[in-house]
């Protein structure tokens, strides 16, 4: 991965938006870098969300959200295929109870106005046929067949790895600390690891995009509130729902849903709570109760005893309302500071919109004078390593015959092998922490939640990275697991 002193474009933030933009830019003869303060891609909102590629039925017609969501939904099918990102067509149900019939009709009109032409209303019995466990007093549902579920981490890693393979530099543990502006134009950024000079800066900093803007001296009025959403994951051997089920939306958003994942687990969530700390991904007692109650309003048989994990994500809710009423994405080429592109307020449907946002950002850069010359060497395809656990008996036998490391099972619940862990550590976007390995291989996500694999995984990280055990971290500096050997003087 080339690192150099001067880039054509520096992207702040290695979330799904930053990674998609990086991959689009990797098509051209440009020096591009992505900086992120964390140790891995997708460490913020991008990997902690509902993992749904929405159809685009929900945003208010005429907004950037509506346009980019519908376009993004269409692009995701191609992008996922090219980048080997798990994506599953599920369709989605927005279910209505008695008294909500007119709201349902309104939602259908909104879907059609947005160009979601295949959206339709299902009668109660059709809803029950799709999901027998649905609440008995359901009167109907909006059915949007184009909705899909995605592996949220692979959806970030895919474009990032492909961008890296095509020459984009990813600089992790590089925290943006200030703007470099010379003669009124962007000259780069300052980071905790020194300045990085660049002709263009793309601000894709998620919940921190407002801070980045302010340090560039633009949009002092713009602010992002972190709205935390908590989720629960079910043990797939005890409870699964194979549908994406929303309640009717309210002013806070699409509500607490019951959904499936590409991995087969079902999840419920999110609630919505404004938090002061933009990194507060803690789960709360109150939130858990709220989510369970919300999910039980859709599927009454949802039970707390079948839960296997909880997590929380933060929505980057901006205060940009171009029509004075509806919150929208703020995506622009700055007039005040030439060379700055802002991609801010990317809350839902941001994930679904991300390929379309990348397309738009490239257009804004081109119109701003960035010369885009295609590379002949560009290869837009990326393949994900095979999961040993998903292979047939014959394929497993062939793998282990080739590489004995496939015969060493490290994670006993998900059957993750040492070979898969070693490969993850040496991919174009290297997994350098426990959590990075976990997100790539599903290690530690099963019933024992890492109890067995911790010591072994730490050893492998220590060996492959050439660092002492005490320096192995969960998610980057400051999250070390061990602090000294036993039997040492204290």
């Amino acid at each position, binding site marked *: 991965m080339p690192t150099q002193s001067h880039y054509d474009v520096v992207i702040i933030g290695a979330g799904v938006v930053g990674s998609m933009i990086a991959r689009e830019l990797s098509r051209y003869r440009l020096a591009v870098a992505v900086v992120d303060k964390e140790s891995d891609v997708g460490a913020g909102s991008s990997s902690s969300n509902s993992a749904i590629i929405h159809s685009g039925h929900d945003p208010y017609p005429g907004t950037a959200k509506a346009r980019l969501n519908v376009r993004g939904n269409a692009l995701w099918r191609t992008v996922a295929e090219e980048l080997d990102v798990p994506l599953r067509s599920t369709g989605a149900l927005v279910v209505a109870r008695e008294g909500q019939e007119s709201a349902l009709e309104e939602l259908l009109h909104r879907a059609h106005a947005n160009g979601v032409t295949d959206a339709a209303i299902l009668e109660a019995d059709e809803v029950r046929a799709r999901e027998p466990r649905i609440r008995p007093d359901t009167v109907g549902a909006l059915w949007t067949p184009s909705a899909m579920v995605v592996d949220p981490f692979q959806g970030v890693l895919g474009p990032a790895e492909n961008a890296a393979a095509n020459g984009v530099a990813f600089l992790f543990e590089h925290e943006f600390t200030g703007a470099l502006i010379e003669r009124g134009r962007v000259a780069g950024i300052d980071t905790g690891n020194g300045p990085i000079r660049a002709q263009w800066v793309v601000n894709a900093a998620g919940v921190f995009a407002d801070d980045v803007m302010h340090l560039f001296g633009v949009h002092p009025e713009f602010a992002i509130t972190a709205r935390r959403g908590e989720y629960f994951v079910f043990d797939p051997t005890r409870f699964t729902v194979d549908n994406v089920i929303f309640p009717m939306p309210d002013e806070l958003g699409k509500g607490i849903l019951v959904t499936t994942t590409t991995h087969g687990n079902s999840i419920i969530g999110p609630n919505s709570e404004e938090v002061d700390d933009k990194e507060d*991904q803690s*789960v*709360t007692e109150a939130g858990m109760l709220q989510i369970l109650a919300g999910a039980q309003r859709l599927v009454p048989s949802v039970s707390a005893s079948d839960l296997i994990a*909880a997590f929380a994500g933060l929505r980057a809710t901006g205060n940009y309302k171009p029509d004075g009423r509806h919150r929208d994405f703020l995506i622009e080429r700055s007039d005040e500071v030439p060379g700055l592109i802002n991609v801010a307020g990317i809350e839902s449907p941001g994930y679904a919109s991300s390929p379309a946002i990348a397309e738009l950002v490239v257009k804004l850069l081109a119109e701003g004078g960035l010369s885009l010359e295609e590379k002949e060497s560009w290869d837009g395809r990326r393949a994900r390593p095979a999961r040993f656990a998903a292979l047939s008996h014959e394929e497993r036998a062939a793998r*282990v015959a080739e590489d004995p490391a496939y015969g060493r*099972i490290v994670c006993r619940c998900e*059957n993750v092998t040492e070979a898969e862990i070693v490969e993850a550590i040496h991919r174009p976007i290297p997994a350098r922490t426990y959590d990075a390995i976990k997100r790539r291989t599903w290690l530690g996500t099963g019933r024992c939640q890492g109890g067995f694999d911790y010591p072994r995984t730490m050893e492998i990280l220590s060996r492959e990275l050439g660092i002492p*055990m005490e320096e192995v971290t969960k998610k980057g500096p400051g*999250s070390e697991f061990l602090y000294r050997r*036993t039997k040492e003087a204290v």
Partner: protein
Amino acid sequence: MRVNGDYDVAVIGGGPAGMAAAIAAAREGARVLILERNDQLGGILPQCIHNGFGAINFGRDLPGPEYAYRYEQKVRALPVEIKLNTMVLDVTGGRDVFAINDDEGYLHFKPKSIVMAMGCRERTRAQIRLPGTRAAGIFTAGTVQRLVNIEGYMPGRRVVVLGSGDIGMIMARRLTIEGATVLSVLELMPHLTGLRRNYVQCLQDYDIPLHLSTTVKKIKGKRRVEGIETIQVDERFRPIAGTERSIDCDTLVLSVGLIPENELSSQAGVVLDDHTRGPRIDSSMATSVPGIFAAGNVTGIYDLVDYVSIAGTAAGANAAAYARGTAPEKRRRRVRLVPGSNVGSILPQEIEIGDDDSRPTIMLRPNATIDVSVRLRFTADDETVTEFRERYARPSEMIVKTLSARHLDQLRGDKNEEYQVEIV
């Protein structure tokens, strides 16, 4: 892939149950295979360097590694094939066993019978729904035990233990000896959940405070644990507002229970019990699938390893008999045992009441503390058929009873197929 049909009995798991099963089966003349995922036999025992093992089977108070070593010597003295570092991936109801290791690759066995002896795993943070951040520094007690006793690393300086289970108390002492400060052991229940002797020897003797009816309200710290907030709960486990207390710590150790490890049993179609969360077994340790036996913590959580070995011995002998076609025909009256009041679970779930002199042993796990003399009753339609006396009932200790001739007589005279077993 060659199908290896050389073995009479395949034992899955080389811990105390598996070793005892292998010994018993081999002594019956069976060709026995042990499949063990670890790099040594013994299961969890090699990391249990404290004593408290062997009182029943050896009449000695041994540390875990020595208890395991004694069984391992017996296994190795018999013609038992041992495959270490070998993970069983799939078991079918037709007794196909798929396993893998880095030496021989992918393996397919077809034994005549199987003993499931996979043991248990620890309950995790998710299962008790602990609120807070996902920082580094939250470990289960067993993981800490492995890190400290086997790997030789300290996972923290200032430690709080949640749960007064035995491993939690033992690790509180161990971490203290290794130089960490154990600030507190918290217990949600109004009573200790581990053995009283461990409370005295591990907490009292090291001045580690125990806080009953207290749990973790919140874990703080983004990267590494920076502290926790505790809260007291009332008799119905509801948090009592105003009792919050902050503790600065960098490590939270969870000792909040064990769960039988039955993914392979489920794959094979073995019926599990709602109370034990392990296979439903009869006095011969047979599961619902013919030719598949189960023993030890995989069938339900035991209090003492000695009983695990005893169960393994029975399972191994019966698996060998099944494999050789010498198992006695099951013509005797079979009765089901169902937990009644104050009983959490019962093993086995089914016993045979024969005319011969065989005496089934049952093991009960009380789910209430009664510190005075109790009666253990077999009832059907609210009528007591037979009963025993016990000195007390505590959730941390199993009640183990071998039915006497008198009890069997009373049960023989009755015609019910199911008995509630209760403690009053």
